Each structure stands twice: as C-alpha cells, then as structure tokens.
C-alpha cells in the first residue's frame, strides 16, 4: 500500500521534496569581496558610461558634419551657377557687347532686362578691377629682383 502510494508521487511532489534540500551557507564577506572586485573593474574600464555616451554623440556629430559638407558645397555651387545664369566666370572677349545687344534686343520683361543689365554692369566693373590689378602686378614684376636690398634703405 505504502509502495503504491510512493509510486504515485507526482512531479510536484518531487519538486517539493527537492526544495527541502538545504543550501550550504554562503561564505562571510562574499558580498564585499564581489562588490570590491566589481568596482575595481568599473574603475579600470577605459571610459566611464557617460564618457562613452559623449564619445558616441561626438562621433555621430562628426559624421553628420562630414556627410553634410559636400551636400552644402554642391548646393552653394548650384546657387552660384544660378546667379551667373549658366555662364562661365570668364566670358570670351567681346562677350559684353554681345550680352548688351542680347539684353537690348531680347524679348524679356522690363524687370528681367533690368536685372540682366545690372548683372552685365557688375560683371564689366569686376572685369575692369581685375584688369587694373593685373596691370599693377605686371608693372611690379621684377621690381624686387632688380632692386638691391641696400637701395631700399
């Protein structure tokens, strides 16, 4: 009868029996030892968590800057191109006259014509300035070679 009863032990009863086992005691001072080791390990890590976070944020920022720079440059150059109305920076000689003729004979609106005239005038003024600078450089060319240093005193 008893055997039969024993034989019909269910898994729950086995679990209960097992749970009656008593663990060996934990050594004293284990907690302190473990926590000391953990804090040492923490101190010895290269970067603290906050520094690690800052490093990640900086890397992301750097990547963003590096990534957006070419895009911004492209946008700037396309804006300049639009301002120059598709013309190259240095038009061929005689270009101004043809441009003037084009503006005067064009079928643009009055405002458009004015804008184009202003642009042509600005371009001509810039060209004149450049010519003057180049002339001045040409005149100065060789000046420092021919002059001896004592002549300067």
């Amino acid at each position: 009868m008893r055997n039969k009863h024993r034989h019909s032990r269910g898994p729950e009863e086995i679990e209960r029996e097992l749970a009656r086992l008593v663990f060996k005691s934990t050594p004293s001072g284990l907690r302190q030892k473990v926590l000391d080791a953990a804090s040492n390990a923490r101190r010895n890590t290269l970067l603290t968590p906050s520094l690690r976070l800052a490093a990640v944020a900086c890397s992301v920022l750097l990547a963003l800057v590096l990534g957006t720079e070419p895009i911004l440059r492209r946008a700037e150059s396309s804006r300049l191109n639009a301002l120059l109305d598709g013309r190259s920076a240095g038009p061929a000689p005689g270009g101004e006259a043809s441009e003037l003729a084009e503006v005067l004979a064009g079928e643009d609106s009055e405002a458009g014509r004015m804008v184009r005239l202003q642009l042509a005038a600005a371009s001509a003024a810039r060209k004149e300035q450049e010519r003057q600078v180049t002339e001045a450089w040409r005149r100065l060319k060789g000046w420092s070679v021919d002059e001896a240093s004592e002549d300067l005193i």
Partner: protein
Amino acid sequence: MKRDRKRRSLTPEELYGRHGQSLYRYLLFRVGSAEDAEDVLQEAFCRFARYDLRWRFIRDPKALVFQVARNEANRFLRSKIKQREGEMKIRAGAGGGFAAAFAVPEEPTLAFLMARADGLPGEQKEVVFLKVFDGLTFKEIGSVCGISANTAASRYRYGIEKLREALGGKS
C-alpha cells in the same frame, strides 16, 4: 519574470541584492568548490560592472545574469582543467552538482533523492536546478543554457520522471 518597468542601469549592489546569493549557489553547483565559485562570481560581477549601459536595453536581467555566470563558469572550467577534459566536464554537468551546493540531508529519503539527482545527466540536472531552486521559467532556462524553451521543458520532465521512478523503486 516581471520586466523592469524603468529601463535603467543596474548597480552591482542592486544586482548582488537581487541575484548574488542564487548566483553563488548556482556557481557552486556548476564548479563544485566554494573558492572557485567565489572567483567565478567575482569575474561575473566584473563583467556586469563593465556592461553598465547595456542593462538599459535588456529585457530579462535575471536570464542574462545566469547566462553570464554560466559562461564564466564554463570559461573557468576550460582554463582550469585541460581544454578537452574541461569540455567533457562541462558536458557531463560540470565538476559540481547537488552534493556541492547542498548540505548533506539527515533524512535518508532526502539523501537518496539528492544522490539520484546528482546521478542525472548533466543537462537535465542543470535544468532541474534552475527550475526548482532559482525559479527560472523554461524560456529563461533556454536562454541561459542556449537551448529552446521546449528542450528545456523536456529535459526537466525527463529529469523529474527519473527521480520519481527512483523514489518509487526505492520505497
């Protein structure tokens, strides 16, 4: 296990408060000696301290701490014993077992049960230990041991069944 509502880093003190004792017992069960269990537990906590930020993204810290402790124990056994022998020991249920983790019971039936539990195959023994003494779910046991929850459940059933038969046969 309930998930932590607030995802935040766990300090080593908190972790020790929650799992320190059970991890020590589990390690004692795995490696078989108190000194070795202490060493491995220290290693595991050093690892936890280095994880820090990772705790915020972990859904089940309990499973992870046991998994890390298990990996540390395996690493320890591999390095302490010769590689091949270590692997065999790990597969056979490590150097520990129930006798290493529990005091010898005075009651003969309990002593017999413990002896039979120690005689179980390593993988069944481990699952029984984690389920009965640490209250891990089969899913958690699966992630600790690197097996599926179904495998963990079937190992558990086989283990308990063997113990049940042994106890029935004894009396």
